[in-house]
């Protein structure tokens, strides 16, 4: 079974590195500050005990008040999984650092989130729409998106 690492375990293992970047700890993951995501991701990847070296999936969600991006990682050696979450309060111009420098697997998924939710990832090599065409108005997965037809 791929066992979920609890938030407490990660916070325990990375106490020094996290240095107050954690906003809250949940049963299967932690919520962290958006600006610190790059450092934290590097920590969980390189930490010898955690070894979360495989970025599985990035999901972006519009929660009306804020946008949430959740990252799912696996450790292929230890058969464990872990979730990292980020909240962006600024809905008019949301931005956060890109993980493409650490995992190129993030490249297409971050472009997808930019296309469908409008979150800009700084440091991404090719930040443009992926599925929809240039000039498409709005971001479809926002809850206030209207279809137009």
């Amino acid at each position, binding site marked *: 079974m791929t066992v979920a690492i609890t938030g407490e375990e990660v916070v325990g293992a990375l106490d020094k590195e996290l240095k107050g970047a954690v906003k809250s700890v949940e049963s299967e993951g932690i919520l962290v500050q958006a600006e610190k995501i790059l450092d934290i991701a590097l920590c969980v990847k390189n930490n010898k005990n955690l070894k979360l070296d495989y970025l599985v999936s990035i999901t972006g969600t519009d929660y009306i008040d804020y946008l949430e991006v959740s990252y799912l990682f696996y450790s292929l050696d230890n058969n464990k999984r872990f979730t990292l979450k980020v909240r962006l309060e600024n809905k008019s111009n949301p931005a956060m650092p890109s993980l493409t420098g650490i995992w190129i697997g993030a490249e297409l998924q971050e472009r997808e989130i930019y296309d469908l939710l409008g979150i800009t990832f700084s440091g991404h090599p090719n930040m443009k729409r992926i599925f*929809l*065409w240039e000039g498409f108005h709005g971001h479809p997965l926002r809850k206030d*998106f209207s*279809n*137009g*037809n």
Partner: protein
Amino acid sequence: MEIRTDSTSLDIDRHEGNLIKELRSSSTKPVTEPSGWLSEDLKRNIFLTTVDNVLNWGRKSSLWTETAFTACCTFEFISLSSSRFDIARFGMEVLRSSPRHADLIITAGTLTWKMAPQIKRVYEQMAEPKWVIAMGACGITGGIFADSYSVVPGYNRILPIDVYIPGCPPRPEALLAGIELLRKKVEKRSFLQG
């Protein structure tokens, strides 16, 4: 001897007399049936018909399909072209990737607005006469995805459709029935239409 405007009536009489003389001299034997006019080796190789019939017979027997397939329905078309359903019976097994060679677009799959200019361009590049079969619910109305923000609600927004085949996806048998309908339509085409 010719008949001119200043010919006298005697001239005309002489002319008519010559015609009788020629006919009489050439009609020494009884006339044979028309089949006898041809030489033996040509007799079984010629038949008489109209231009329309010949052109339409050729067109309906070699409808070459453009490979402009977009989604799921493609696999039912591949099934149709494989040995089990054997589309080669209708001279249609040739798939053309170049629109210049193709006569027919089978719209196998959902059309998105991003894809629409490409399909329209392929259609415009095809030589006349050309036909379009709207295959499947997506091809007809957008089907299950009609409400989506990126899907064209039916190929008839951008192309003239000749035959609609419902189903999601249509079975190969349904596709065959649709092709039969199209062949009937091709048969009715007139040379004067161009």
